[in-house]
């Protein structure tokens, strides 16, 4: 079984982002970038499937600038076999990402695609579902547990109120939630080995996808601030303030 994983290069989750004063966006210059954490979970799940003998080959795809190649190298160091960079300097929206991945899938013919449920930059939570729609494949979103069988996969999903398990015919799309696994750190020998693994390049144009945005970003602003309040000295003072001052008890 061939598995495809998609990985996005995003601002590292530990970085406190800054909005540009002119409202034109978020400052990305000289900011630490990393693989989207949900995508790390996707790569880990694929590597575990390979270790269990269920997956035979893992292809890692990223869409972005030249530096997105480094994100692919990280996936290769974790255990993916090959990489494909769809190179573009444009900001690509989820719908266009889904169309690009559809084009890649037409060439690669994977049986299973594992992706993060959302990227922590635009927080859209759309691409996996959109890709499934464009391919006419089933989708197992927000995966908590993935159980690959013969021609089918059971996905236990994190849903409001608990867990839900769905059975999907393969080929299928799975998007990862936080508790699916704990991604490994790549070892130094594996990082060295990853440098020798094949990494091909293509472009949205070569795949025939128009990446022109459909959403026009008019403005990016700081959220309304919240001021720190007061420290209270005791439980009695807290309860009294909640009753009389805040009026919430």
């Amino acid at each position, binding site marked *: 079984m061939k598995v495809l994983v998609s990985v996005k290069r995003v601002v590292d*989750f530990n970085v406190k982002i800054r909005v540009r004063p002119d409202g034109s966006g978020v400052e990305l210059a000289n900011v630490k970038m990393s693989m989207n954490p*949900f995508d790390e979970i996707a790569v880990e799940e694929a590597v575990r499937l390979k270790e269990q003998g269920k997956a035979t080959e893992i292809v890692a795809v990223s869409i972005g600038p030249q530096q997105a190649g480094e994100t692919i190298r990280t996936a290769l160091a974790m255990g993916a076999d090959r990489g494909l960079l769809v190179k573009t300097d444009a900001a690509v929206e989820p719908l266009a990402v889904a169309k690009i991945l559809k084009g890649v899938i037409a060439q690669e013919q994977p049986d299973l695609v594992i992706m993060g449920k959302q990227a922590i930059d635009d927080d859209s939570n759309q691409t996996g579902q959109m890709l499934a729609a464009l391919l006419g494949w089933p989708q197992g979103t927000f995966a908590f547990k993935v159980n690959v069988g013969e021609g089918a996969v059971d996905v236990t999903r994190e849903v409001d109120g608990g867990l839900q398990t769905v059975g999907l015919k393969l080929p299928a799309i799975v998007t990862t939630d936080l508790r699916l696994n704990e991604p490994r750190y790549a070892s130094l020998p594996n990082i060295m080995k990853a440098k020798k693994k094949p990494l091909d390049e293509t472009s949205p144009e070569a795949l025939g996808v128009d990446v022109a945005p459909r959403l026009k970003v008019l403005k990016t602003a700081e959220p309304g601030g919240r001021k720190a309040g007061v420290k209270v000295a005791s439980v009695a003072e807290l309860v009294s303030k909640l009753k009389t001052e805040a009026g919430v008890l």
Partner: protein
Amino acid sequence: MTTLLIAEHDNAHLKDATHKALSAAKALGAPVHVLVAGANARAAAEAAAKLDGVEKVLLADAPAYEHMLAEPTAALIVSLAGSYDALVAPSTSNGKNIMPRVAALLDVMQVSDITKVVSPDTFERPIYAGNAIQTVQATDPKKVITVRTAAFPAAGEGGLAAIENVNAAADPQVSSFKGEEIAKSDRPELTSARIIISGGRSLGSAENFKTYIEPIADKLGAAMGASRAAVDAGYAPNDWQVGQTGKVVAPDLYIAVGISGAIQHLAGMKDSKVIVAINKDEEAPIFQVADYGLVGDLFTILPELNSALSNPSA
């Protein structure tokens, strides 16, 4: 110009998320129809018909929609989409699962998780865990929108809409429901509770959630929440997680116990009206957003709080 709102329900009851998303749907300025897709879901449709500002309720009642699986439900919505300019759903796990599938089938770029309707095609939405707010204009002829329910008030009752049955669409038959584990609780749901008390990893165990947090939640009629760290450690179930990738809440009172206040957690609760933080580390970032902070050991403070709440004169 008509808007179709996809109802969140459990077949027997309409969920509060529907009432809140309705406020956003109404703000688009067009008449609103509500789609109830379910199995034996007449009761939910009747509840939707009573909501103020609903012109018509569409009821698609078929076994395929019992669990609102994405593949058949998206096919149904697409079959109805021709008559509508905007398709709206709350950002519940169903809404997040189904709507992008609908959007892609219609070749529309979805606007996720809106927090404000600026005009019928322009919306505010949070990015980077709520650390920036984007104003976006959707240029596609049809709009597909999910609504952050914490940002909108619940629409009231007072309507008397007709219920119209609609035919099921062809089921793609690529997915099936296999089971679920849904926690049964008498407590309010996290996303609609007036008061929430959340615990962090400092609680130390699932038993301590029960011993220290639960009695206070019972007394206040509060929902219980948790930080990601507490959920990852197995102290609380995953559906309690408040944060960027968990639930986003805005109750009247949010009590954060032993939660340091990582930006991912703040993203899920900083719009609460009143925030109380209880933490032994006085430098914890949670105090920067808290209206009332109490520095100290939660294992001492929580029993005190519990008895103070029992004593009406306190």
